[in-house]
């Protein structure tokens, strides 16, 4: 699946390891929360970066203590209408001061990009039937925001006072 990261199309070094599938010998992996909780120490010792995949009903509080070990947190949208991951992204950035990659996965639509971008997501897995150029330009559709979030981009209220 194509990946938009920091505003450009990027390679994805992560292998998604589902359920109890065997871990690859090397390289970056993305595991679900259950796997992380049961094999936490081994995953930390393992050679290669590790990330955790949270479903929309799992909250970042579950991995808050472990964030220094995680290079990426993937937040799943089972359907674009399920907006729980927006709260998760903001909590990761603003409450837990997470500075790694926060990735949007699942039903990720181009229309959601500007919301996700401001909520703290830094990378987006999107469907390959959508033109890549559209994804790169969609990020600049909206340039004015009213809400302060963890990205500290100035809001309309702050710009008014300059």
């Amino acid at each position, binding site marked *: 699946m194509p990946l938009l990261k920091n505003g450009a199309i990027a390679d994805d070094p992560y292998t998604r390891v589902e359920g109890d599938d065997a871990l690859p010998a090397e390289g970056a992996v993305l595991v679900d929360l259950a796997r992380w909780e049961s094999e936490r120490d081994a995953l930390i010792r393992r050679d290669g970066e590790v990330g955790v995949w949270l479903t929309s009903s799992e*909250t970042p509080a579950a991995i808050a203590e472990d964030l220094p070990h995680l290079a990426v947190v993937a937040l799943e949208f089972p359907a*674009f*209408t*399920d*907006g*729980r991951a*927006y*709260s998760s992204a*903001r909590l990761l950035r603003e*409450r837990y001061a997470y500075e790694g990659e926060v990735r949007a996965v699942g039903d990720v*639509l181009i*229309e*959601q990009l*500007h*919301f*996700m*971008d*401001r*909520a703290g997501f830094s990378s987006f897995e999107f469907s390959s039937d959508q033109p890549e150029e559209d994804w790169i330009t969609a990020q600049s*559709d*909206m*340039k*004015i*925001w*009213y*809400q*302060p*979030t963890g990205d500290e981009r100035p809001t*309309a*209220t702050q*710009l*008014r*006072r300059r």
Partner: protein
Amino acid sequence: MYKYDEFDAEFVNQRALQFGRQVESRLSGSLSEEQFRPLRLMNGLYLQLHAYMLRINVPYGCLNSVQMRKLAHIARVYDKDYGHLTTRQNMQFNWIKLADMPEILLELASVEMHGIQSSGNCIRNITADEYAGVAAEEIEDPRVYCELLRQWSSLHPEFSFLPRKFKISVTGSEKDRAAVKAHDIGLRLYRNENGEEGFEVFVGGGLGRTPFIGKSIRAFLPTRHVLSYCEAILRVYNQLGRRDNKYKARIKILVHEMGAEAFTELVEKEWAQISAGALEVPEAELERVRAFFVPPAYERLPEESPELEAQLGSDAAFATWARQQLAAHKQPGYAIVNISCSPVGKPPGDISSAQMDVVANLADTYNFGEMRVTHNQNLVFTDVRKSDLFALWQELVRVGLATSNHGLISDTICCPGLDYCALATARSIPVAEKLSQRFADQDKQKEIGEIYLNMSGCINACGHHHVGNIGIVGVDKKNSELYQLMLGGSAEEDASLGKILGPGFDEDGIVDAVENVIDTYLELRDESERFIDTYRRVGPDPFKERLYSAPA
């Protein structure tokens, strides 16, 4: 009223252009209806039974004459020459063509209007007391906070894909004209015993299939925290609100299932972590917004106008209208004027483009160029000199906007029903029309006195039937329309939910039934007692007996 600065204007423009591109993609076929649906909904465009319907936000009901003329223009050029005022103080057009949308949105943007978030599972248009800033009994003007909430909720990065739609209403009066206890969040602005401004916060009110009266979860919230407290409520709801069943997805179900106490605890815990953050409203911003809502340049006038007194004495029709449609104003010599858009035998809330143009001109002449839309689907001029009332009335008579039914039985709230709506199970407008014809007699209406009759064409309750003193809901039973009658609802500060009286009626039967209810009330009431007070005193039994016991 609030005026856009460069940032607000740019925000709406960017969004209009973005949606324009999306419409082009839909028309060229590169977007399917399925892919397009969420995009159009987020811009206020519904697909109804016969055509697209566009709902345009009127922020907390405030509208200026330039905007009203633009709405008239849109009705004339792109629709069937009329628009419809909604119970959430908005304007909707029922016959829009998709290909016209990009142009319409740019036209709207040019007068600081849009349809952003007038649909979808997001924070909808903020509503408020239609007398905000002018009611004689008002404690504080809620519009400043409505505007702060409007900006905060516009394309919110976290709360645009909620479990379900979310409605916020604000009042600053003792008398609740904003139905704050029937909203997802209701805010009541008041001053505490130390003279500080704050809000009582209600959560989890709402109508629809499972009606609830909102619960008070905070007795006093200092006003500078209004955004952070709402953010805390929304965050708890976004994370925990049910997403498995759209009929159980509103915050009222979460509050009910979890219990108000447990819910409040979570909100307070969340709020404790964000209350000192960037959402605290800076005094400078408060001042900036407040400046838009300073009173207009009133003349110093005596409270009474001898001119008006003379006109009231010499013209009985004018006197009837004035007695019914006026409300007391803060400023001596001025009056609040209710303009009824629910004339006898017409769909409540419909207004023609010609009427819109006239109203805009009258607003310029008599009302500082502004007007309000009310949740009863009418209009209000908030600042009319008493000595101008007669001239204003004459102009209103000429365009059919001088009906004298404010707060009376023919001033119904009514949803569009099966004539327009894809969700409806029964027609509602024709029944409302028949009811208003049955009670058309002005003296009879006046004799009945203050009463709220609300009517919906299905259980989703867009016509607020649960909180009508008399509520009617149309249902579909074995392929024919059946109308159920409920009594005892109220949307005001004494909010209560109506109860179904008994078996339903057909279209003509419901009109007779309402008349029987009214006759029963007139027999039972103590002198000058309102319908709702009589009902609360005597209970449903006398009404049941009258309606359902077999004739002797």
